[in-house]
């Protein structure tokens, strides 16, 4: 396709160009999936570390989620493509992640054995599952 000439084109050429551009844009919008995956991994490590560490270490680690949020905003602001309906798509996963975090915290404080255990791993996996679901949504797009 000539860069500067806007002459006529066939329907097949138009359909092929639409296919090419939309595929490339969707590929570039997948950064949201990779970001959510990174958040899930970082959060999982954070929950395990905080759940297994002593009280003082847990307190020292507590500002990490704020750092993570800052990193997310920094990464997001540098991306060239914001995927279609990103806000609407991400909202349920973020709300679910917040609900899971609060529920997980309550479970840990009330019925869970303190310190590292298989239950802690399961609980951490449950708490990050909304991020994993969001990552899957974007990466399969």
């Amino acid at each position, binding site marked *: 396709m000539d860069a500067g000439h806007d002459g006529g084109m*066939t329907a097949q050429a*138009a359909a092929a160009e639409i296919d*090419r551009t939309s595929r490339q844009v969707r590929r570039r919008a997948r950064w949201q999936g990779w970001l959510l995956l990174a958040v899930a991994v970082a959060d999982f490590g954070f929950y395990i570390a905080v759940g297994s560490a002593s009280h003082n270490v847990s307190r020292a680690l507590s500002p990490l989620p704020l750092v993570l949020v800052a990193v997310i905003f920094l990464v997001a602001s540098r991306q060239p*493509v914001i995927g279609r309906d990103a806000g609407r798509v991400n909202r349920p996963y973020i709300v679910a992640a917040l609900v899971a975090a609060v529920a997980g915290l309550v479970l840990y404080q009330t019925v869970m054995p303190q310190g590292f255990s298989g239950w802690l791993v399961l609980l951490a996996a449950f708490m990050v599952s909304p991020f994993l679901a969001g990552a899957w949504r974007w990466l399969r797009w």
Partner: protein
Amino acid sequence: MAPLVKTGGSHPRYRLDDMIHAPVRLSIVSALAAADQVDFRFLRELVEVSDSLLSKHMTLLEDAGYVEITKGYQGKRPRTWYTLTDAGRDAFAAYLTALHEIVGTAGDQQPPATDGRGPHARS
């Protein structure tokens, strides 16, 4: 196949929007239709045009009410974002419908390349 020429009539080609049915603008609009926002640099590389030509087409699309332009800064670096308006999305949907009819009436001779979502692929 000869280029699509519009002279008036009932054939679906007469419904192809001139503002979209031009190679550079078609690439731009189809890229914007697949996203909420796309920045200038990415679009320029995707469409493979110069800064000035891209700006010219973006101004035309903005004047037609199809594109919204947002200018800002990332640190000290200026950035320009493009968004397809509701009118632009409606026009592109109508364009895709007409294009689909044309490709359909062309039979199975040369099906368009797709990634499994077809030319109507939109998120």
